[in-house]
C-alpha cells in the first residue's frame, strides 16, 4: 500500500533555532496517528507543514503523492484541519462561518447547507446555528471548529488538541467519530497532551522530543520496548530528563514552612 502521508528527512529551523531534525514518517490510509511530545517538541510545526502553512523546510513531505511545497492547494483540499484554542471569527454565527468555510473549500451550497444542518444537530447545536459565537462557551466553539474541519469530507483529518473544553458526552462522541472515520478509510493525525485518549484512539503513536522522533509504533509495540506501562509512564520515561516523582517531592517540600 502507498503511504498517504510521507515525511522524509524533514528539518525546519527558525533562524538558528532548530525545531525539527530529520523527521521520517510514513502514514497509511485508515491509520489513526497519535502525535505526542512535550511542549515545544515541534508538534505544531509539523502540523503547520502538513497543512501547507509553512513551506520553507528541508526534506520532502508528500500527501497522497502530492508535494506539499509545490502542490500546496491540492494538498489543502484533501486535509481537514481543526486547530486548538478555538480560533474562529466569533462575531459570526455558526451558519455564516461554516458557509464561509464551505465556499473556501469550493463546496456546493446546497450540499454545505445540508451537512451544516446535520452536523450541528448531531452536536446538539441546532438551536444556536443563527446565534453569534461571541457568547458561546469554549466547548461550543470547539464543536463549530470540528464541523468546519469535517465539512468538505476530507481524506486526512488533522486534529490539534480537539477535545479541549468539550464535556464528557461530546468527548465520547468525538472518540467514536474518530474510530468511525478511520474505519471509512480516513487518515487521522491526532495531536494531544491527553495520553489516556491518545492511548485509546490511536493505532500508532509517534513521540517526538526536541525535534526528533524518539518512539514510533503501536501502543503494544511501545509496551514491548518500554515495559508494560501506561502511555503516560512511557511518555515520562522517554521525555523527562529527571525523575518526575523527585520533582513532585520537591514541590511538596516547598510548602513546608521554616518556622
Amino acid at each position: 500500500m502507498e503511504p498517504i502521508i510521507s515525511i522524509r528527512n524533514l528539518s525546519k529551523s527558525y533562524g538558528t533555532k532548530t525545531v525539527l531534525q530529520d523527521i521520517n514518517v510514513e502514514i497509511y490510509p485508515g491509520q489513526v496517528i497519535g502525535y505526542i511530545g512535550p511542549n515545544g517538541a515541534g508538534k505544531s510545526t509539523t502540523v503547520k507543514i502538513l497543512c501547507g502553512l509553512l513551506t520553507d523546510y528541508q526534506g520532502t513531505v508528500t500527501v497522497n503523492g502530492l508535494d506539499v511545497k509545490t502542490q500546496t492547494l491540492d494538498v489543502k483540499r484533501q486535509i481537514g484541519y481543526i486547530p486548538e484554542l478555538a480560533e474562529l471569527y466569533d462575531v459570526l454565527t455558526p451558519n455564516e462561518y461554516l458557509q464561509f468555510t464551505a465556499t473556501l473549500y469550493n463546496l456546493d451550497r446546497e450540499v454545505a447547507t445540508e451537512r451544516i444542518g446535520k452536523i450541528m444537530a448531531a452536536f446538539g447545536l441546532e438551536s444556536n446555528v443563527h446565534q453569534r459565537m461571541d457568547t458561546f462557551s469554549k466547548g461550543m466553539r470547539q464543536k463549530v471548529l470540528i464541523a468546519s474541519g469535517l465539512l468538505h469530507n476530507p481524506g486526512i483529518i488533522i486534529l490539534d488538541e480537539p477535545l479541549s473544553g468539550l464535556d464528557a458526552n461530546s468527548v465520547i462522541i468525538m472518540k467514536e467519530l474518530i474510530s468511525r472515520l478511520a474505519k471509512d478509510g480516513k487518515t487521522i493525525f491526532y495531536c494531544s497532551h491527553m495520553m489516556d485518549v491518545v492511548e485509546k484512539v490511536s493505532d500508532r503513536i509517534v513521540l517526538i522530543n526536541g525535534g526528533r522522533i524518539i518512539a514510533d509504533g503501536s501502543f503494544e509495540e511501545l509496551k514491548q520496548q518500554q515495559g508494560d506501562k501506561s502511555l503516560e509512564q512511557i511518555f515520562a520515561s522517554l521525555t523527562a530528563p529527571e525523575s518526575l516523582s523527585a520533582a513532585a517531592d520537591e514541590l511538596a517540600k516547598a510548602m513546608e514552612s521554616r518556622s
Partner: protein
Amino acid sequence: MNIINKAFLKLALLPSPVYDRMGVDKRALTAILHIKLTMDDRRVSGLQQAQRRKSDKEVSSATIITMIVSAVLGLLYLMAFYIGSNIVTGLTFYFFMFFFMLSATLISDFTSVLIDVRDTFIILPKPVNDRTVLLARLLHIFIHICKLVLPMALPGVIYMGVKYGIVSGIWMIPMILLLTLLAIFFINAVYIVILRITTPQKFQNVISYFQIVFAIVIYASYQILPRMMETKGLLEFDLTTYTWSAAMPMYWMAVGWQSLTSLTFTIESVIFLFASIVVPLLCVWVVVKFLAPSFNNKLALINSSADGPATPVKLKKHKRSGIAEKLGTVLTKGNAETAGFLFAWRMSGRSRDFKLKVYPSIGYMLVLVVAMFIRSKDFSLATLADNGKEFRIFMIVGIYLMSLLLVTAISQMVYSEKYKAAWIFYVAPVAYPGEVILGAVKAIVVKFYIPIIVMIAIPGLMIGGWQALPNLLLGLFNQLLIAALLVYINFRNLPFSRKQNANLNGGSFIRNIGIMLVSVFIAMLHYAAYEITVVVCVVAVLSLIATWLISGSIAKTSWTKIKAEQDA
C-alpha cells in the same frame, strides 16, 4: 450585510475579468470579502473605542456609524477655512486636519480590523491561492479606507464646490486622494518604526498609547481652537509669507489646488503642484516595494506568542522592593489591604482597558486647566500673585476639578476584560473584602491623584506663598473625603472584577451625579471660607478625621455586600 457594504463589494468585484486573468479564485475572493465586511459591521470602530462602553446589544451596523462619524469629522474640518487671510492657508489647515485624523484612525484600525491574526488558522489552511488571499486583503483595506475617506471628504468638496464653483470642488477630489496615499505611507512608516523599537508583543500597547494621545489631542483642539479663532492673529495669519510652509506636503496641495482652479501658474506653484502629485506616488511605491513585504511578515508575529515554544526570559535578579512595595507597606495595614494596593497599582499600569479609559481623562483635565488660563481675558501672573479673587478661583477650580479624575479612575478600576480572574478573592480566606477594596482605592489615589495635586500645589505655593498651604490641604482632604464617600456609598465591587457593559444601573449614575453635586457644594463652601485661615485649618483637620473614619468603614465591608459578575 447592509446596502453600503453590498455596494462596496460589487464595486470591488467589478474588475473581476482582470482578477481572473491574474489567477484569482473569484468565488473564494467574494466569500472572504463578504465575511470580512460582515465582521466589520459588527465591530465597534477604533474611533469610538476610547469613549464608548461596550454594550451588550449586538452591533450590526458599525459601518454606517463609522461613516456618519467620518462625515461629522469632515464637517468639523471646515473650521479650518476660517483660519488665515487667504484660501491657501485655510486649505492647508484643512488638509492637515484631514491627514492627522485619517492617520490616527487608520493606525488603530490596521491591527484591529485589517490584519486579523486569526486568518492564519482560518483562511490559510484552506485551498485558496496566495494571490486570492493577498487581493482580498488589499481590497478589504481599500474598502475600509473608502468608507472613512469618502464621507470625510464630502463636506469639504461640497463647501469648495459651493463657494468657488463646481470645478474647484472637483479638484479637491484628486488632492484628497493624494493626501490619503500620503497617510497610508505615514502609517506604514510609523508601524515600521514601532516594530523596530519594540517587540511585536508590546506592539498593541504602543498602539493604545497612540490612541490615548489621539483622544487628548482631539479634545484639546476642540477646546482650544474655537477660542484661538476669536483672537485676531489667527484670522490674519498667512502661510504664504513663511518659507517653512514649503516643507509641508499639505501646503503643496493647497497651492496646487489653487493654481488648478484659478488656472494661474507660476514657477513656484507648478513646482508645488508637481511635488504634491509625485511625492505621494513615490511614497506608495516605497510602501509597495520596500515596506510592505517585511511589514506583513512582522505583523504576522503580533499576538503569535502561541507559536512555538516561549523563549524563557533570563532570570532577572528580582528587585527586593520597588516603589509600589514600599508605598504599599507604609500606607496600608494588614495583608489583604496591602495585596489590594499592590494589585490595583500593577493592574492599573498594565491593563490596556483601564489605561484607555483613564489616561485620556487625565489629559482632558490638563487641557481643561490650560483652557481655563486662555479663557480668562486679562489673565496674568501679576493678578494671580495678588492672592486676589482670580487666584482663589484658580486654586479652587483646579483642586476640585480633579475630583472628576479621581471619580473616573476609581469607578473604572472595577472593570476588566479579565474579570473572571477575580475568583481568587473569593477562594482566598479574606475576612473583609473591604480591606482589599480600601487598599486598591489607596493605590489609585496615590498613583493618579497625588501627582496631579502636587503639580497644582507647586505653582500654587510659588505664586500664593505659604498662605495657600492650608487651603491646598483642605482641598486635598476634602477630595479624599469625597472619594472615600463615593467608595463607601457606591462601591460594592472588588477591583478589576466586573465586565464592562452599558447597562449600568440608573441608581449608580444618579449617585455619581450626587457625588459631583456634593463636590461642587463643598468647593463653594471652601471658596467662601478661603480667607479665614483658622476655619480652613479646623475644617481641614475635621475633613481628615472624617476620611479616616470612612476608610475604616470601607475596610469593614463584608462579603454579603459585594456584587459579583453574574455569568450565565
